[in-house]
Protein backbone atom coordinates (compact mmCIF):
# COMPACT_ATOMS: atom_id res chain seq x y z
CA UNK A 1 0.00 0.00 0.00
CA UNK A 2 2.79 2.39 0.89
CA UNK A 3 4.17 2.18 -2.66
CA UNK A 4 1.02 3.64 -4.15
CA UNK A 5 1.27 6.98 -5.87
CA UNK A 6 -0.52 10.00 -4.45
CA UNK A 7 -3.05 9.85 -7.28
CA UNK A 8 -3.84 6.19 -6.58
CA UNK A 9 -4.32 6.90 -2.88
CA UNK A 10 -6.61 9.84 -3.62
CA UNK A 11 -8.69 7.71 -5.97
CA UNK A 12 -8.96 5.08 -3.28
CA UNK A 13 -10.02 7.64 -0.66
CA UNK A 14 -12.57 9.09 -3.07
CA UNK A 15 -14.01 5.60 -3.50
CA UNK A 16 -14.64 5.47 0.23
CA UNK A 17 -11.46 3.94 1.63
CA UNK A 18 -11.04 6.61 4.24
CA UNK A 19 -8.22 4.78 6.02
CA UNK A 20 -5.94 5.15 2.99
CA UNK A 21 -5.73 8.85 3.68
CA UNK A 22 -3.44 7.95 6.61
CA UNK A 23 -0.79 6.95 4.04
CA UNK A 24 -0.84 10.46 2.61
CA UNK A 25 -0.64 11.92 6.10
CA UNK A 26 2.36 9.76 6.95
CA UNK A 27 3.98 10.67 3.66
CA UNK A 28 3.83 14.44 4.10
CA UNK A 29 3.36 15.19 7.78
CA UNK A 30 7.00 15.65 8.77
CA UNK A 31 8.06 17.68 5.75
CA UNK A 32 5.01 19.93 5.95
CA UNK A 33 5.52 20.23 9.69
CA UNK A 34 9.12 21.36 9.12
CA UNK A 35 7.95 24.14 6.82
CA UNK A 36 5.06 25.26 8.98
CA UNK A 37 7.23 25.25 12.09
CA UNK A 38 9.81 27.43 10.36
CA UNK A 39 7.02 29.87 9.49
CA UNK A 40 5.18 29.90 12.82
CA UNK A 41 8.26 29.39 15.03
CA UNK A 42 6.16 27.33 17.38
CA UNK A 43 5.68 23.55 17.71
CA UNK A 44 2.21 23.59 19.16
CA UNK A 45 0.73 26.04 16.64
CA UNK A 46 2.49 24.26 13.80
CA UNK A 47 0.97 20.90 14.70
CA UNK A 48 -2.48 22.38 15.20
CA UNK A 49 -2.42 24.21 11.87
CA UNK A 50 -1.04 21.14 10.09
CA UNK A 51 -3.86 19.02 11.49
CA UNK A 52 -6.36 21.51 10.11
CA UNK A 53 -4.57 21.45 6.76
CA UNK A 54 -4.87 17.68 6.45
CA UNK A 55 -8.50 17.97 7.43
CA UNK A 56 -9.16 20.73 4.89
CA UNK A 57 -7.38 18.72 2.21
CA UNK A 58 -9.50 15.66 3.04
CA UNK A 59 -12.72 17.67 2.85
CA UNK A 60 -11.72 19.16 -0.48
CA UNK A 61 -10.32 15.99 -1.99
CA UNK A 62 -13.42 15.67 -4.15
CA UNK A 63 -12.50 18.97 -5.83
CA UNK A 64 -8.92 17.86 -6.50
CA UNK A 65 -8.76 17.33 -10.28
CA UNK A 66 -5.18 16.01 -10.64
CA UNK A 67 -4.28 19.10 -12.68
CA UNK A 68 -1.33 19.61 -10.34
CA UNK A 69 0.57 17.30 -8.05
CA UNK A 70 -1.09 16.56 -4.74
CA UNK A 71 1.79 17.93 -2.72
CA UNK A 72 1.87 21.31 -4.50
CA UNK A 73 -1.88 21.58 -3.90
CA UNK A 74 -1.45 20.50 -0.30
CA UNK A 75 1.51 22.81 0.37
CA UNK A 76 -0.55 25.73 -0.95
CA UNK A 77 -3.11 24.91 1.74
CA UNK A 78 -0.32 24.65 4.32
CA UNK A 79 1.29 27.93 3.32
CA UNK A 80 -1.99 29.86 3.25
CA UNK A 81 -3.12 28.36 6.55
CA UNK A 82 0.17 29.35 8.16
CA UNK A 83 -0.26 32.91 6.91
CA UNK A 84 -3.81 32.99 8.23
CA UNK A 85 -2.58 31.74 11.58
CA UNK A 86 0.11 34.41 11.65
CA UNK A 87 -2.33 37.19 10.90
CA UNK A 88 -4.93 35.88 13.32
CA UNK A 89 -2.28 35.80 16.01
CA UNK A 90 -1.84 39.49 15.24
CA UNK A 91 1.77 39.10 14.44
CA UNK A 92 3.16 41.88 12.35
CA UNK A 93 2.34 41.21 8.75
CA UNK A 94 5.29 43.39 7.79
CA UNK A 95 7.51 40.46 8.73
CA UNK A 96 6.04 38.62 5.79
CA UNK A 97 6.94 41.40 3.37
CA UNK A 98 10.15 42.68 4.89
CA UNK A 99 13.43 42.29 3.16
CA UNK A 100 16.16 40.18 4.68
CA UNK A 101 18.44 43.14 4.12
CA UNK A 102 16.60 44.89 6.92
CA UNK A 103 17.04 42.08 9.38
CA UNK A 104 19.86 43.62 11.39
CA UNK A 105 18.68 41.75 14.46
CA UNK A 106 19.95 38.57 12.88
CA UNK A 107 23.47 39.73 13.32
CA UNK A 108 23.20 39.91 17.06
CA UNK A 109 20.78 37.10 17.81
CA UNK A 110 23.24 34.51 18.91
CA UNK A 111 26.40 34.20 20.82
CA UNK A 112 28.97 32.28 18.82
CA UNK A 113 30.22 30.33 21.80
CA UNK A 114 26.73 29.06 22.53
CA UNK A 115 26.00 28.22 18.94
CA UNK A 116 29.04 26.11 18.22
CA UNK A 117 28.15 23.83 21.07
CA UNK A 118 24.80 23.00 19.57
CA UNK A 119 23.94 20.29 17.13
CA UNK A 120 24.61 21.66 13.65
CA UNK A 121 21.24 20.71 12.23
CA UNK A 122 19.48 22.31 15.16
CA UNK A 123 21.62 25.37 14.76
CA UNK A 124 20.74 25.76 11.09
CA UNK A 125 17.04 25.34 11.94
CA UNK A 126 17.41 28.01 14.57
CA UNK A 127 18.92 30.42 12.08
CA UNK A 128 16.25 29.65 9.46
CA UNK A 129 13.66 30.31 12.17
CA UNK A 130 14.82 33.89 12.28
CA UNK A 131 13.92 34.50 8.66
CA UNK A 132 10.56 36.11 7.77
CA UNK A 133 7.80 33.53 7.12
CA UNK A 134 7.95 33.70 3.34
CA UNK A 135 11.75 33.35 3.25
CA UNK A 136 11.62 30.52 5.77
CA UNK A 137 8.95 28.79 3.68
CA UNK A 138 11.05 29.08 0.50
CA UNK A 139 14.19 27.77 2.19
CA UNK A 140 12.22 24.97 3.76
CA UNK A 141 10.57 23.89 0.51
CA UNK A 142 13.77 24.17 -1.52
CA UNK A 143 16.07 22.35 0.87
CA UNK A 144 13.98 20.23 3.19
CA UNK A 145 11.27 19.23 0.70
CA UNK A 146 13.62 19.36 -2.29
CA UNK A 147 11.10 21.19 -4.48
CA UNK A 148 12.05 23.00 -7.66
CA UNK A 149 11.73 26.78 -7.89
CA UNK A 150 8.84 26.26 -10.35
CA UNK A 151 6.94 24.18 -7.81
CA UNK A 152 7.59 26.73 -5.07
CA UNK A 153 6.37 29.52 -7.37
CA UNK A 154 3.22 27.51 -8.03
CA UNK A 155 2.59 27.05 -4.31
CA UNK A 156 3.29 30.64 -3.32
CA UNK A 157 1.54 31.98 -6.42
CA UNK A 158 4.49 34.19 -7.32
CA UNK A 159 6.87 34.21 -10.26
CA UNK A 160 9.87 31.88 -10.47
CA UNK A 161 12.22 34.88 -10.55
CA UNK A 162 10.69 36.15 -7.30
CA UNK A 163 11.26 32.75 -5.72
CA UNK A 164 14.90 32.90 -6.81
CA UNK A 165 15.29 36.39 -5.37
CA UNK A 166 13.90 35.21 -2.03
CA UNK A 167 16.02 32.07 -2.13
CA UNK A 168 19.26 33.90 -2.93
CA UNK A 169 18.67 36.59 -0.33
CA UNK A 170 17.82 34.04 2.32
CA UNK A 171 20.85 31.98 1.44
CA UNK A 172 23.08 35.07 1.58
CA UNK A 173 21.82 36.15 4.96
CA UNK A 174 22.27 32.64 6.34
CA UNK A 175 25.76 32.58 4.87
CA UNK A 176 26.54 35.89 6.55
CA UNK A 177 25.34 34.70 9.93
CA UNK A 178 27.39 31.54 9.69
CA UNK A 179 30.39 33.49 8.43
CA UNK A 180 30.22 36.11 11.17
CA UNK A 181 30.05 33.44 13.84
CA UNK A 182 32.96 31.57 12.39
CA UNK A 183 30.84 28.48 12.20
CA UNK A 184 32.55 27.22 9.09
CA UNK A 185 35.34 25.89 11.23
CA UNK A 186 32.79 23.70 12.95
CA UNK A 187 31.42 22.48 9.66
CA UNK A 188 34.69 21.72 7.98
Amino acid at each position, binding site marked *: MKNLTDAEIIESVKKGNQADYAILIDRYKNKAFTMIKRMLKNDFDAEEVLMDCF*FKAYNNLSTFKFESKFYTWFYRIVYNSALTKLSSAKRKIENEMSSVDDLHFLQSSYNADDLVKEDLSLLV*KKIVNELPPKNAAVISMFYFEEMSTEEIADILQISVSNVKVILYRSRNIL*KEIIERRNLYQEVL
Partner: protein
Amino acid sequence: MKNFNDDMLNRYLDNELSNEDKNSLQSSFENNPEIKKRYDALLITHNLLKNVQPDLTSIDFSKMVMQKISKRRIIEFQQKRFLFSVLSLFLIIIVGILGYVFYEIISTIQLSDSSKTISVYSNLVGNYFSVFFGKKNLSILGSVLSLIMLISGYFLYDYQKHSKKNFSH
Protein backbone atom coordinates in the same frame (compact mmCIF):
# COMPACT_ATOMS: atom_id res chain seq x y z
CA MET B 1 37.75 41.42 -14.92
CA LYS B 2 34.05 40.86 -14.42
CA ASN B 3 32.64 41.63 -10.98
CA PHE B 4 30.86 38.60 -9.58
CA ASN B 5 28.29 39.52 -6.98
CA ASP B 6 26.46 37.18 -4.59
CA ASP B 7 23.59 36.84 -7.00
CA MET B 8 25.94 35.46 -9.67
CA LEU B 9 27.50 33.10 -7.15
CA ASN B 10 24.06 31.84 -6.21
CA ARG B 11 23.20 31.27 -9.83
CA TYR B 12 26.46 29.41 -10.33
CA LEU B 13 25.64 27.25 -7.34
CA ASP B 14 22.25 26.40 -8.86
CA ASN B 15 23.85 25.80 -12.26
CA GLU B 16 21.94 28.63 -13.88
CA LEU B 17 24.80 30.61 -15.40
CA SER B 18 25.57 30.60 -19.09
CA ASN B 19 28.64 28.64 -20.14
CA GLU B 20 30.49 31.87 -20.81
CA ASP B 21 29.80 33.26 -17.33
CA LYS B 22 30.52 29.90 -15.79
CA ASN B 23 33.97 29.73 -17.40
CA SER B 24 34.67 33.32 -16.48
CA LEU B 25 33.74 32.66 -12.86
CA GLN B 26 35.80 29.50 -12.70
CA SER B 27 38.87 31.40 -13.88
CA SER B 28 38.11 34.09 -11.28
CA PHE B 29 38.25 31.44 -8.59
CA GLU B 30 41.85 30.77 -9.55
CA ASN B 31 42.85 34.42 -9.85
CA ASN B 32 40.84 35.96 -7.05
CA PRO B 33 40.88 34.14 -3.69
CA GLU B 34 38.27 36.54 -2.31
CA ILE B 35 35.62 35.40 -4.79
CA LYS B 36 36.58 31.77 -4.16
CA LYS B 37 36.23 32.34 -0.42
CA ARG B 38 32.76 33.88 -0.87
CA TYR B 39 31.67 31.02 -3.06
CA ASP B 40 32.98 28.42 -0.63
CA ALA B 41 31.05 30.07 2.18
CA LEU B 42 27.91 29.94 0.08
CA LEU B 43 28.52 26.32 -0.84
CA ILE B 44 28.96 25.36 2.81
CA THR B 45 25.72 27.14 3.68
CA HIS B 46 24.02 25.28 0.85
CA ASN B 47 25.35 21.94 2.06
CA LEU B 48 24.42 22.72 5.63
CA LEU B 49 20.85 23.44 4.60
CA LYS B 50 20.71 20.30 2.47
CA ASN B 51 21.65 18.14 5.42
CA VAL B 52 19.09 19.48 7.87
CA GLN B 53 16.85 16.76 9.20
CA PRO B 54 13.08 17.33 9.05
CA ASP B 55 11.20 18.08 12.26
CA LEU B 56 8.96 15.31 13.50
CA THR B 57 5.32 15.60 14.45
CA SER B 58 4.03 13.88 17.58
CA ILE B 59 3.87 10.07 17.33
CA ASP B 60 0.08 9.85 17.24
CA PHE B 61 -0.37 12.74 14.80
CA SER B 62 -1.79 10.63 11.94
CA LYS B 63 -4.11 8.86 14.36
CA MET B 64 -5.41 12.18 15.67
CA VAL B 65 -6.11 13.49 12.17
CA MET B 66 -7.92 10.29 11.21
CA GLN B 67 -9.95 10.43 14.43
CA LYS B 68 -10.92 14.00 13.62
CA ILE B 69 -12.01 12.96 10.14
CA SER B 70 -14.02 10.00 11.49
CA LYS B 71 -15.65 12.19 14.12
CA ARG B 72 -16.64 14.66 11.46
CA ARG B 73 -18.26 11.93 9.37
CA ILE B 74 -20.27 10.71 12.37
CA ILE B 75 -21.43 14.26 13.10
CA GLU B 76 -22.47 14.73 9.48
CA PHE B 77 -24.39 11.46 9.57
CA GLN B 78 -26.19 12.45 12.78
CA GLN B 79 -27.05 15.86 11.36
CA LYS B 80 -28.48 14.25 8.26
CA ARG B 81 -30.54 11.85 10.39
CA PHE B 82 -31.87 14.72 12.49
CA LEU B 83 -32.85 16.74 9.44
CA PHE B 84 -34.43 13.65 7.88
CA SER B 85 -36.58 13.12 11.01
CA VAL B 86 -37.79 16.72 11.03
CA LEU B 87 -38.49 16.68 7.29
CA SER B 88 -40.36 13.36 7.61
CA LEU B 89 -42.61 14.87 10.25
CA PHE B 90 -43.46 17.80 8.02
CA LEU B 91 -43.99 15.49 5.08
CA ILE B 92 -46.56 13.49 7.08
CA ILE B 93 -48.39 16.70 7.97
CA ILE B 94 -48.36 17.86 4.34
CA VAL B 95 -49.72 14.48 3.21
CA GLY B 96 -52.49 14.84 5.82
CA ILE B 97 -53.43 18.29 4.55
CA LEU B 98 -53.43 17.07 0.96
CA GLY B 99 -55.61 14.12 2.01
CA TYR B 100 -58.12 16.52 3.52
CA VAL B 101 -58.14 18.70 0.42
CA PHE B 102 -58.61 15.59 -1.70
CA TYR B 103 -61.55 14.50 0.44
CA GLU B 104 -63.15 17.93 0.13
CA ILE B 105 -62.90 17.71 -3.64
CA ILE B 106 -64.29 14.21 -4.04
CA SER B 107 -67.12 14.84 -1.58
CA THR B 108 -68.49 17.50 -3.94
CA ILE B 109 -68.45 15.14 -6.93
CA GLN B 110 -71.42 12.76 -7.61
CA LEU B 111 -70.15 9.23 -7.41
CA SER B 112 -71.38 6.19 -9.37
CA ASP B 113 -72.57 3.03 -7.58
CA SER B 114 -69.34 1.23 -8.26
CA SER B 115 -67.49 3.93 -6.40
CA LYS B 116 -69.63 3.76 -3.31
CA THR B 117 -67.26 1.50 -1.41
CA ILE B 118 -64.39 3.92 -2.00
CA SER B 119 -66.72 6.74 -1.07
CA VAL B 120 -67.49 5.13 2.28
CA TYR B 121 -63.84 4.79 3.12
CA SER B 122 -62.99 8.26 1.94
CA ASN B 123 -65.91 9.57 4.01
CA LEU B 124 -64.41 7.93 7.05
CA VAL B 125 -60.97 9.38 6.38
CA GLY B 126 -62.55 12.70 5.49
CA ASN B 127 -64.51 12.83 8.70
CA TYR B 128 -61.40 12.10 10.64
CA PHE B 129 -59.49 14.88 8.92
CA SER B 130 -62.38 17.33 9.11
CA VAL B 131 -62.43 16.84 12.87
CA PHE B 132 -58.67 17.06 13.04
CA PHE B 133 -58.43 20.16 10.86
CA GLY B 134 -61.69 21.71 12.01
CA LYS B 135 -61.84 25.36 13.01
CA LYS B 136 -61.57 24.41 16.64
CA ASN B 137 -58.49 22.26 16.27
CA LEU B 138 -56.77 24.25 13.55
CA SER B 139 -55.40 26.88 15.90
CA ILE B 140 -54.22 24.16 18.29
CA LEU B 141 -52.58 22.34 15.42
CA GLY B 142 -50.85 25.55 14.28
CA SER B 143 -49.56 26.17 17.78
CA VAL B 144 -48.30 22.59 18.10
CA LEU B 145 -46.54 22.86 14.73
CA SER B 146 -44.92 26.14 15.66
CA LEU B 147 -43.80 24.64 18.96
CA ILE B 148 -42.34 21.60 17.19
CA MET B 149 -40.50 23.90 14.79
CA LEU B 150 -39.13 26.00 17.62
CA ILE B 151 -38.02 22.96 19.62
CA SER B 152 -36.45 21.38 16.50
CA GLY B 153 -34.66 24.61 15.72
CA TYR B 154 -33.37 24.90 19.25
CA PHE B 155 -32.12 21.31 19.34
CA LEU B 156 -30.53 21.66 15.93
CA TYR B 157 -28.72 24.82 17.02
CA ASP B 158 -27.67 23.28 20.32
CA TYR B 159 -26.56 20.11 18.61
CA GLN B 160 -24.50 22.04 16.07
CA LYS B 161 -22.86 24.07 18.83
CA HIS B 162 -22.11 20.95 20.86
CA SER B 163 -20.70 19.14 17.83
CA LYS B 164 -18.52 22.08 16.91
CA LYS B 165 -17.18 22.29 20.44
CA ASN B 166 -16.39 18.57 20.56
CA PHE B 167 -14.91 18.70 17.14
CA SER B 168 -12.47 21.46 17.90
CA HIS B 169 -10.93 19.47 20.76
